[in-house]
């Protein structure tokens, strides 16, 4: 492990799927992730947001090597893991864990919660039965599950409890990097709150780095230090949480933030929002030039450049990256909407 290196570095990552012929689609190449670069710093919570189908899950699956990337590289603590064989990858699995979106289908229905959580220890031959039982009990307590839950099967647990089991399983090996794909989206708000609080506490205590994927902006704002925004297979903006929410640059980020609903009618009904016209373009045939141009309210201002030239993701102010022709050091994109803000409740 190289301590100075970022926990995770993704460089020029591409993942294309060759789709077969289906009714109504001619087959072709799905540009799910196209030339994406970012790094996850040590101990950082990085939020990844974007429209449905923009490639978030694909990116996460490439990072944990569930998908073979088409090209590009992935480094874990400075070590290139892009092409490691399954066998060489195995010891690294302890360091890099994933929590899945659907707490139900990702848990083996024939194993008890205790067995599910202890399995990584067993697979990695890290502990004998007795030690394992102790570790499982410990982590159960840590994630707020009772000892009685150890002998229950997934279908005997509530959604929130299942998600805790998934989290416990991911954390039992003390990974240094956690990739969480929409871990709370399927849950009730009150259950969501307890899982989010838990994740934040665990992260502070255990110090892991986390790539947190969601489409809920309020969640990333609560949890994450930095935020990356994805649109149609590309990163369009990366910045600190405060920057993104105070001063979103990319027109897509602005639209996304403006569409987020503020849970307060007095604020919500006064906000200026941009509703994006039309449907997201197909990843089978992404637009030339800027991929957002077909729906961008500022397209006229950047044409004809944006029709032909793809705007690169570049640093426009310290630690703030944007991919739009209208954004450059010293010149900002026009504001087209109001970011979500609630007036703090006092008292």
């Amino acid at each position: 492990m190289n301590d100075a290196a970022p926990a995770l570095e993704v460089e020029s990552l591409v993942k294309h799927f060759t789709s077969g012929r289906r009714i109504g689609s001619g087959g072709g190449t799905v540009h799910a992730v196209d030339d994406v670069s970012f790094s996850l710093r040590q101990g950082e919570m990085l939020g990844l947001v974007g429209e449905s189908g923009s490639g978030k899950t694909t990116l996460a699956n490439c990072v944990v090597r569930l998908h073979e990337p088409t090209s590009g590289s992935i480094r874990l603590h400075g070590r290139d893991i892009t092409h490691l064989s399954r066998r060489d990858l195995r010891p690294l699995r302890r360091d890099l864990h994933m929590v899945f979106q659907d707490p139900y289908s990702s848990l083996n229905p024939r194993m008890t919660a205790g067995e599910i959580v202890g399995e990584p220890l067993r697979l990695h031959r890290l502990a004998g039965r007795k030690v394992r039982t102790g570790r499982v009990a410990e982590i159960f307590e840590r994630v707020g599950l009772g000892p009685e839950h150890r002998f229950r099967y997934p279908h005997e647990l509530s959604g929130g409890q299942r998600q805790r089991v998934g989290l416990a399983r991911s954390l039992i090996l003390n990974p240094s990097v956690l990739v969480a794909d929409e871990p709370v989206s399927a849950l009730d708000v009150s259950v969501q709150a307890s899982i989010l609080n838990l994740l934040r506490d665990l992260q502070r205590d255990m110090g892991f780095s986390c790539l947190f994927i969601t489409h809920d902006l309020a969640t990333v704002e609560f949890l994450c230090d930095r935020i990356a925004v994805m649109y149609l297979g590309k990163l369009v903006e990366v910045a600190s949480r405060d920057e993104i929410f105070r001063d979103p640059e990319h027109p897509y980020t602005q639209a996304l933030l403006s569409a987020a609903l503020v849970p307060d009618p007095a604020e919500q009904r006064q906000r200026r929002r941009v509703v994006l016209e039309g449907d997201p373009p197909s990843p089978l045939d992404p637009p030339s030039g800027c991929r957002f141009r077909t729906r961008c309210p500022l397209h006229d201002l950047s044409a004809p450049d944006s029709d032909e030239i793809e705007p690169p993701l570049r640093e426009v102010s310290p630690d703030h990256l944007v991919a739009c022709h209208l954004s450059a050091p010293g010149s900002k994109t026009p504001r087209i909407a109001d970011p979500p803000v609630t007036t703090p409740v006092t008292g």
Partner: protein
Amino acid sequence: MSAEPLLEVSDLSVRFDTDEGPLQAVDRVSFTLAPREVLGIVGGSGCGKSVTCMSLVRLLPQTAAVTGSAVFDGVDLLALGPRRLRRVRGREISYIFQEPMTSLNPVFTVGDQIGEVVRRHLGLSRRAARQRAVELLQLVRIPAPERRVDEYPHQLSGGMRQRVMIAMALACDPKVLIADEPTTALDVTIQAGILDLMREIRERLGTAIVLVTHNLGVVADIADRVIVMYAGRKVEEAPAEELFAAPQHPYTVGLLGAIPRPGERQERLEEIPGRVPAAAAPLEHCVFADRCRFADETTRTQVPALRAVRRDHLVACFHPEADRAA
């Protein structure tokens, strides 16, 4: 909203006969809906939102025992014979189901499916039905409606499918549209478009909307009035602005505290400890008692009646916020 109510639901209860025994899904719920009003129904998963709405149009299975009344246009929907029921359903009251993909038939085109509704209810010819389908697609702002009308559901994006569902529900100019989680499966930018569409429908066609959701942001955006349900009961009802500004029931307060609030730097989100009770019969005490920090002897032994803490603001709690503030 003091107009004569369009729909008046009184003491609605639903009990299911399940393999594990009876289950009280809805317990003595009453509310009204005024013309042109958007009424939000919110609450956690399983609190009875969908069952409440489905019982109004009698879409529940045989295992459901429904009592109470739901008077629409002078007649009790719960007592309607099958013929009159069919006339009301789809024509005067339309329903959009929670899962859009399962409610569209994959083997028929969008135009066939909308056309079928107008032919059945309005007796239009095949040609007129197709024309109406195109108009409706236009109404819900689907681009190139003449082309889309001949497409199959899988050729449409999630947002467009939901628009088709809305178009279908509006086919006969209903007075009431019941929309069950119409935006839950969609992402935020698409959701914003659907909410704008519903607002526009209410303005242009005067349709009253019952909007079921667990997303308080959706309610904050569009609802005039909100009902909060918990474990089958209505625990609070208020105009939307007031509910958010001055929530009264400890459950509502907890729910609002549990969502991350944009623009604030919260250290922690509020959690509601414990679990929702599942009851075989109506509980004879406050449904929230075992999770409530204000619970006491009264709370654990009596059912709190709904009472008005302010005009139009009802709460079923022995210890609402208003009492504490005083």
